[in-house]
């Protein structure tokens, strides 16, 4: 059910939406792939945020904050606030914040079922 709702988004005609410039905060030279467990999904404007725990090579768990598009942009692509739940194992392709914190801007999210979806973030506006 979750997947079927989510992927209305591929066929939705509305373009992606950017509240702020990607370049204001994030670095296109620092791509990062985050494979981890969702701890929280804040479905809100002007950006929704995914919080996830990522286990590093040394076994230490690091909490990441990952920005997506606005609730409105996500909603029009089929996302709902229950689209991600704590405990979900997901993989996010993203770009790190320039300030070096464990913050990133998502371009795509691979869901527990393996389907990869747009994060409706500012990064995606170039596509």
């Amino acid at each position: 059910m979750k997947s079927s709702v989510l992927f209305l988004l591929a066929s939705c005609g509305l373009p992606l939406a950017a509240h702020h410039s990607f370049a204001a905060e994030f670095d296109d030279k620092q791509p990062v792939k985050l494979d981890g467990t969702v701890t929280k999904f804040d479905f809100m404007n002007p950006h929704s945020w995914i919080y996830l725990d990522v286990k590093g090579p040394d076994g230490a768990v690091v909490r990441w904050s990952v920005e997506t598009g606005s609730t409105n942009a996500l909603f029009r692509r089929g996302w709902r606030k229950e689209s991600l739940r704590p405990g979900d194992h997901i993989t996010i392709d993203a770009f790190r914040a320039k300030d070096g914190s464990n913050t990133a801007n998502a371009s795509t999210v691979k869901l527990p079922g393996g389907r990869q979806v747009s994060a409706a973030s500012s990064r995606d506006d170039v596509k």
Partner: protein
Amino acid sequence: MKYLALLVIAAVCASAQLAFTPPRLPDGHPDFGGIWMAATLSAAFNVEEHAASYGTPAGPSVIVDPPGGKLPYLPGMRERAVDNDQHRERDPVGQCHMHGVPRVMFPPFPLEVLQDGSYVVILTETEHGVRIIPTDGRPFLKNYSSWNGDSRGHWEDDTLVVEVRGLNGKGWLDQAGNFVGAGATVVERFRLTAKDTLEYEAKVENAAVFSRPFTVRVPLRRRPTDVELLEYGCIEGERDAAHLPPVNAPVNGGQK
């Protein structure tokens, strides 16, 4: 033969466009009601012609005057815009401020037009913008200053002409740091050119920043009927500020 066919098709299209008659309200004015969004989203990123760069789609200039599509900055002003471009954290919209006119008409979010005999109202999803445009001839508010200013409209045949004064001079024109300054005034023109196309033009005069007026033109495209405006509580999820560089010139249009 092939060219003849193309000519016929072009002639048919041209005549169809000329023959377009807008739907009308009981008062006889064109009905602009509906949900619209800029057909050219690249204008939100940069009103001038620009190549694709990271986070920004390529796009043509939406400046139709002066010829050449470049903003007619006064000496020294383009340098300020370039400096803004390198410090996009200053963008007022990124800080949840209103877009300002004319930028408010082509954000990458939908807007809704409502009309009756005395008003045209434009509701913008982003930042919950409300532009109430009286068309009954009332005077401008005195000493008003705000992001979207004070608007007064009148009809010239089937074109809605809106004069905007009282802009606060802090607005950017796009995400690339182009800006207007103190004393800017705008004359907007709205015209239905097809059932689902609302042509938007804005002539901006701002002698403090530009050597002459300039005009942007962005067609707005009608959104499908299942699109509705949604709430956009910009402050609620705004968590970027903590990760931005120190803002050394916030919300001042790049003017130091």
